[in-house]
């Protein structure tokens, strides 16, 4: 049944620095991705543990395009179960979230416990000695599919794979460190929303890892002369390039303080913000990090932009569509004032974000631009051809190449 992927696509020469355009549209490749990536050796983010707090609480979401239920069982353990009845495949949980003591399929009333074990089959013994399941029907062989699940810092991850390393090992030390920093203090959910995009999911994930475009496509800061005097920045890539962090650090406390006191360079005929409090924040982290965009392979993002904290998950919805789910959060120790700053800064992000709205639109333009040129490839060679991380500068596409390294590893192309 395994398709020979090499028959589906020929990867151009030049390693991970040329990307065949076909893989953004081809339905067969999309199908292989579901199998080899989303059901392959990765951990998928499926939700916030705090939002599924009590035994019996559940939420429904997706791993790739497979529907799953994330729940807390009666012992208080997180479980992730494929949302597919073992009988005829009906969705067992319909609601986005809810509470249940057991999982009951509405179609023919097969009942499962919160670990997915089949407990009973309606009319299993027949009606009036007529019908019923065969004598050799064994309930134990007909449970719902339960996935391996791990919770780290309140983030719930699951995997279809038996081979993948334990979560933190798979992430690597540097990646775990950043997760600790951003979400390790606990999360208070401030809002959720989604952004539906007319492009392949990988185009969005390339965008997330594209440090080259940041100051070019997004004109908000340049237009309003919002510049920091000097900034140290760089890129961290996990071994093999799968995960990445792109970061900036204010050089000194003083500089950050100056910035905060509205030292926004107003150039003569530039525009200025009528209300510059939008970009006023506080020094939240001792390390001075003012920006850190982290992508966890393949489709999860942990974001710190000043004091705006968010998680993003890019769900594939067919070859040419995807849905970006956002969780915007603060931390339990936030004062009212800090909470207000976070709310204000949320204007920079999301589908209506003055800085990031463009990220929602370029993918669709690429999709349209390349439609008739499936045999061509894109060029990802800024900063070299390989995946050596660079501590200096952001004029590089190394993180994108890291993504493709992970892609080729999983897909076998």
């Amino acid at each position: 049944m395994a398709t020979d992927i090499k028959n589906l696509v020929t990867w151009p020469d030049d390693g991970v620095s040329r990307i065949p355009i076909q893989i953004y549209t081809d339905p067969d490749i999309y199908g292989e991705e579901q199998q080899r990536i989303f059901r392959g050796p990765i951990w998928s983010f499926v939700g916030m543990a705090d939002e599924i707090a009590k035994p019996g609480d559940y939420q429904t979401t997706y791993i790739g395009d497979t529907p799953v239920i994330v729940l807390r069982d009666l012992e208080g353990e997180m479980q992730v179960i494929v949302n597919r009845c073992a009988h005829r495949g009906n969705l067992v949980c319909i609601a986005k979230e809810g509470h249940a003591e057991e999982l009951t399929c509405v179609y023919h009333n097969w009942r499962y416990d919160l670990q997915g074990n089949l407990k009973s089959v309606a009319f299993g013994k027949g009606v009036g000695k007529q019908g019923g399941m065969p004598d050799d029907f064994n309930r134990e062989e007909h449970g719902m599919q339960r996935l391996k699940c791990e919770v780290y810092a309140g983030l719930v991850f699951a995997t279809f794979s038996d081979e993948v390393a334990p979560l933190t090992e798979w992430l690597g030390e540097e990646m775990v460190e950043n997760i600790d920093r951003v979400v390790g203090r606990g999360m208070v959910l401030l809002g959720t929303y989604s952004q539906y995009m007319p492009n392949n999911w990988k185009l969005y994930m390339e965008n997330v890892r594209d440090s080259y475009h940041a100051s070019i496509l997004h004109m908000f800061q340049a237009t309003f002369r919002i510049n920091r005097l000097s900034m140290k920045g760089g890129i961290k890539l996990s071994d093999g390039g799968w995960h990445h962090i792109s970061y900036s650090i204010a050089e000194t406390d003083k500089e950050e303080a100056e910035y905060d006191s509205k030292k926004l360079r107003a150039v003569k005929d530039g525009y200025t913000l009528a209300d510059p409090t939008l970009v006023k924040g506080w020094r939240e982290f001792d390390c001075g990090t003012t920006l850190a965009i982290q992508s966890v392979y393949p489709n999860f993002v942990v974001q710190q932009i000043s004091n705006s904290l968010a998680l993003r998950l890019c769900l594939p919805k067919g070859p040419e569509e995807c849905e970006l789910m956002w969780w915007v959060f603060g931390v339990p120790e936030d004062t009212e004032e800090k909470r207000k700053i976070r709310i204000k800064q949320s204007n920079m992000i999301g589908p209506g974000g003055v800085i990031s709205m463009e990220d929602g639109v370029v993918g669709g333009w690429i999709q349209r631009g390349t439609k008739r040129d499936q045999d061509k490839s894109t060029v990802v060679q800024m900063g070299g051809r390989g995946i050596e991380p660079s501590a200096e500068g952001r004029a590089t596409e190394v993180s994108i190449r890291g993504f493709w390294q992970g892609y080729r590893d999983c897909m076998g192309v």
Partner: protein
Amino acid sequence: MHGGLIVDGSISAPGDVRQLISDLIIEYAHAIDDDRLESWTDFFTDECSYRIINRENHDKGRVVGIMDCSSKGMLQDRILALREANVFEPHTYRHIVSGTRVVGQEGDVFNVETSFLVVRTMQEGDMAVFCTGKYIDEIVVAGSTARFISRIVVCDSNRIDTLIVIPI
């Protein structure tokens, strides 16, 4: 005044006040649809707020929306950013607003709710329902003028297609 209908929250208000409120809501929609966005801020009082939030967040009492302007300056900045900075494919809206009702009053400040539907037309002609929902407004009526003190745009769907740059 409801003729014995069971209503949830509507109160009566004088006809001329209703007219002013209704005019404000209708003129606001036309200003956006006609691309007179520089006049958008004029519909608000000097101290004002504007927020777009989805129904789920709003019902759960969550605070972060898709746009959140807590001052008139922020409203201005949104429009300036749209004109000068943000990159997007040109498009227009058509607002259909209806069913305005007054649900509260304190002095000259009225709490008002109105349903809306926004159809978005892209430059190449693609048209789609972009957003439906309900405006939850605080409107001050002084003499012959009405202005928004606060406007909360509650969208029925959690999803925004591609991006939102023009206010609703």
